[in-house]
């Protein structure tokens, strides 16, 4: 009881922290930040859009790390990490596309356009939906984990190539506003806009790691049930 009680308490604290951080982030994005000089109020969606994609990239990076570790050491926990991360990553990527559409309609005049970064993001989503499908369609746990790990690694290595090819193919998306190779982030964006953005990125990362820890714990519990059943011969 003692250990689970402590765990619950930790979860509670982490969850509350995520909730507060998102609340503060929303306050900064919706109230504190001034409206954009050109785009007006609709630009405020950036305070969700960029943090969501940052969290999604972190998720897919963790899938890659978990996959490599699993193939190397064959420890179940690395597989649980990759699986948990992939699920949240798929959710966040889908969310990014929806947010982008809501922003794109008033700004570009269309819900969707075949621009380089939009297309890359959509392909990324398709790859990791395939990853989750693959996991669910292989009955044998160990084999599912190995197959998924291989796909996770290949997917991660393929993404730069996809990005490059789609980028050459067409480019319409405005150049990255914040993370540009030629200038430091604070030179591309005014401080009153940058601070809310940073607050939101931090808030989304806290939320992401909270979701990840919940999903990871779920995976562990499933494992424990399976072991228990095997021991008792059910």
């Amino acid at each position: 009881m003692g250990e689970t009680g402590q765990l619950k308490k930790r979860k509670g604290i982490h969850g509350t922290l995520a909730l507060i951080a998102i609340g503060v982030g929303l306050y900064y994005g919706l109230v504190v930040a001034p409206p954009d000089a050109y785009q007006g109020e609709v630009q405020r969606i950036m305070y969700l859009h960029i943090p969501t994609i940052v969290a999604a990239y972190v998720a897919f990076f963790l899938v890659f790390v978990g996959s490599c570790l699993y193939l190397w050491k064959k420890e179940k926990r690395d597989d649980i990490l990759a699986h948990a991360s992939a699920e949240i990553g798929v959710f966040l990527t889908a969310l990014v596309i929806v947010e982008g559409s809501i922003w794109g309609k008033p700004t570009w005049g269309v819900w969707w356009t075949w621009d380089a970064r939009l297309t890359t993001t959509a392909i990324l989503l398709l790859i990791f939906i395939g990853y989750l499908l693959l996991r669910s369609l292989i009955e044998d746990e160990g084999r599912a984990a190995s197959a998924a790990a291989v796909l996770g690694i290949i997917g991660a290595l393929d993404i730069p190539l996809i990005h490059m090819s789609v980028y050459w193919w067409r480019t319409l998306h405005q150049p990255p506003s914040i993370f540009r190779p030629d200038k430091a982030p604070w030179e591309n964006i005014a401080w009153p806009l940058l601070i809310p953005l940073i607050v939101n990125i931090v808030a989304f990362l806290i939320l992401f790691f909270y979701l990840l820890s919940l999903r990871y714990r779920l995976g562990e519990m499933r494992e424990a049930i399976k072991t228990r059943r095997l021991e008792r011969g059910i």
Partner: protein
Amino acid sequence: MEFLSQTYLLLHKDVRLELRRRESLLTMFFFGTLLLFVFHFSFDLVPEKIAEMAPGLLWLAFLFTGTLGLAQLFQAERENHCLDALLLAPLDRGALFLAKTCFNLLLMVLVELVIMPLFWVLFDWRAWNLLPQLFLVTLLGTVGFCVLGTIMSAITLRARARELLLPLVLFPLMVPVILATIRCMENIVRAGELGDAWPWLRLLLGFDVIFTTLGILIFDWVIES
């Protein structure tokens, strides 16, 4: 040397099996021809428009026939637990990967060698002089397709509904190959030579090299029993 002779033996086995059964090659060939008919019914392919649409249509036909071949790639191994026997044999798994890739490549190239001239004939496209160049580019694209396709075919080997799953996981990963091949072919059709499309060809070559290497290194984990 050992590695190459193992690859050769495995490839030899597959070719001999295929010569006796004639399953994959015939179905792929007829499916490809069928697709050309479907294209004709779906699009109004007059000779003036064919140059514009040829790269996309040809590559679409190869993509679908190739997927058909990949779904059958490990069929012989699935029957009677032959895969277990193959894994028990003192073989390098990389050689198994290379042999399977070469076998699938061989099938697809044979199909392409028939389908491409047929395309020219059926749609009355007079630009026969472009055929060799277009074939070379197609060959590079096919290598990329076979390499990644073999890995994915092995991954989905033990999955339920694997024939449906295979294209779902394979096609998104194939985007660079599809884009690069079609851009190269378009340039050849337009200008008569590769011209501006050199970076695309380099991308295609890079893809082929990266994933062939990765396949040989990683196949041990892909196919473990």
